[in-house]
């Protein structure tokens, strides 16, 4: 297989398969949870479950002062790499082009220099997160193989993307192919790992908030 053929395979069949596994897996896992349902709450409502649920989705994004003081490092690095990933994913021109191709909608891009800087900051934040995970005895004790796997598939697209943009190491054709392949790896592992939190976090927050809201408790 020549480099061009490899890139074509990555952009074609491989991307198609990755998309199918990603979507199929995500939909299955969400429905599995939702279909299970809850017992009806027979008590009289003291407040709005929906309002409580929605409130929790927002409020749980921000740590309380005490928590923040205790886990400032996790909070800050977490916010940085999450925002970084979204900025890079959604505001780099060639990425927008992909979304336009698939969804038919487009939006303005950020200058490549900004994306470049964001990538470096995000990679550093992710490295810091890993070091913290290994250095902190409690974190290390709690960590499973999957936690390292998830970290790896998250940082790979960033590193390969950076290399592709600056053309480091391989031919540009190979670099783009490897970058897209790393994203496909992320898509394929996504539904079967903790990466699912990107969807389930909203469900669980809503669940918690709705219970409290129904009882008229401020969660």
């Amino acid at each position, binding site marked *: 297989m*020549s*480099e*061009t*053929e490899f*890139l*074509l395979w990555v*952009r*074609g*069949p491989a*991307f*198609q398969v990755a*998309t*199918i*596994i*990603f*979507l*199929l*897996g*995500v*939909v*299955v*896992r*969400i*429905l*599995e*949870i*939702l*279909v*299970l*349902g809850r017992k009806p709450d027979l008590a009289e409502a003291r407040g709005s479950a929906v309002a409580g649920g929605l409130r929790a989705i927002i409020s749980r994004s921000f740590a309380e002062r005490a928590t923040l003081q205790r886990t400032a490092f996790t909070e800050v690095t977490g916010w940085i790499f999450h925002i970084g990933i979204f900025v890079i994913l959604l505001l780099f*021109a*060639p*990425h927008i*082009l*992909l979304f336009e*191709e*698939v*969804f038919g909608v487009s939006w*303005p*891009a*950020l*200058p*490549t*220099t900004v994306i470049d800087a964001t990538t470096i900051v995000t990679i550093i934040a992710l490295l810091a997160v890993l070091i913290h995970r290994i250095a902190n005895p409690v974190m290390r004790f709690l960590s*499973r*193989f*999957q936690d390292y796997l998830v970290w790896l598939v998250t940082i790979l697209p960033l590193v390969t993307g950076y290399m592709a943009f600056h*053309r480091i190491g391989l*031919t*540009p*054709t190979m670099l*783009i192919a490897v970058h*897209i392949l790393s994203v496909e790896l992320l898509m394929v592992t996504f539904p079967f790992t903790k990466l699912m939190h990107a969807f389930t976090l909203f469900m669980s927050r809503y669940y918690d908030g709705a219970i409290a809201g129904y009882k008229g408790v401020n969660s």
Partner: protein
Amino acid sequence: MSKDETLGEALRRQGVTRRGFLKFCAATASMMALPPSMVPAIAAALEKARRPSVIWLSFQECTGCIESLTRSHSPTVEGLIFDAISLDYQHALQAAAGSAAEAARETAMEENYGKYILIVDGSIPLANPGYSTIAGISNLAMLEETAKGAAAVVSMGSCAAFGGIPKAKPNPTGAVSVGDIIKDKPIINVPGCPPIPVVITGVLAHFLIFGTIPELDALGRPMAYYGQSIHDRCYRRPFYDKGKFANTFDDEGAKKGWCLYKLGCKGPTTYNACATTKWNDGTSFPIEAGHPCLGCSEPDFWDGGGFYKAISTPTEDIPKAAIYAVGAGAAAGLALGALNRAKRDKAVAEHVKTTIDDLEKGD
């Protein structure tokens, strides 16, 4: 032209001034990324160089490469340098034909055995030798025979260098590149469809000056000309970096000269000298004329997923795949959910207790 004439003598005889000659030497030096202080040395070397014998074989090709070379806006010094080599065999340009032509090739090979430069344009068909023959000799046999006595082989154009258009899918003739066949000679790949004229003269000049082949990249291309990507030297690059793209060939962006990435530009994956040396005597190059780069100096450029499709976009129908995936996922999810429900209801009915082990799911 006598065979023993030096290059300097040949050029003077053809009316090239000292000034014109030095200008060419300076241009050659800068093209080869050599410091200006090298110019006198280059001039001296070129002055004394003997005209090397060149045998040019044309296989499965369209003659575009030789057209490109001969259209190098004569009378440029590059053109004269070309005149000043001893082109002993070239179909399109030589007067002799048939057995006389073949005799010329054989004589040149004998007289200059081990010293001549072999230039090849076009790919070689392996599926059936009958697809392309010259004087009844198959391309493969002629290449192998002629390469034996060559000091170096220059694969001129993308067909000779990488197989080019004849090798494009489904490759009916089983076309391969020169490098696929010749393994024991230094090969200089000068790809492009066609290559830029000044690049081939530059490669020949290097050979004349240093008696060696120039520094090559991983694909066998001279670094001096193929060392930088089109994208890195493209004057539209600031627009790419700002995220300003032409969406069609006649929209506002196209008129303002914005980046052609969305229109399928292969500049980011293409190494060639177009953006610096330009075409037509330095007039412009394709991107300057408003057309995206096709990536013609890269292997398999013809099968790169469409000339007008951006390199980062998928080549299969993703929305359709997505709809099927979501549909199948919904069906499977509902079925699995129902199964889980039944399991739960059964567990409740049988008063099954949850233990700490149930919560520890391992990895």
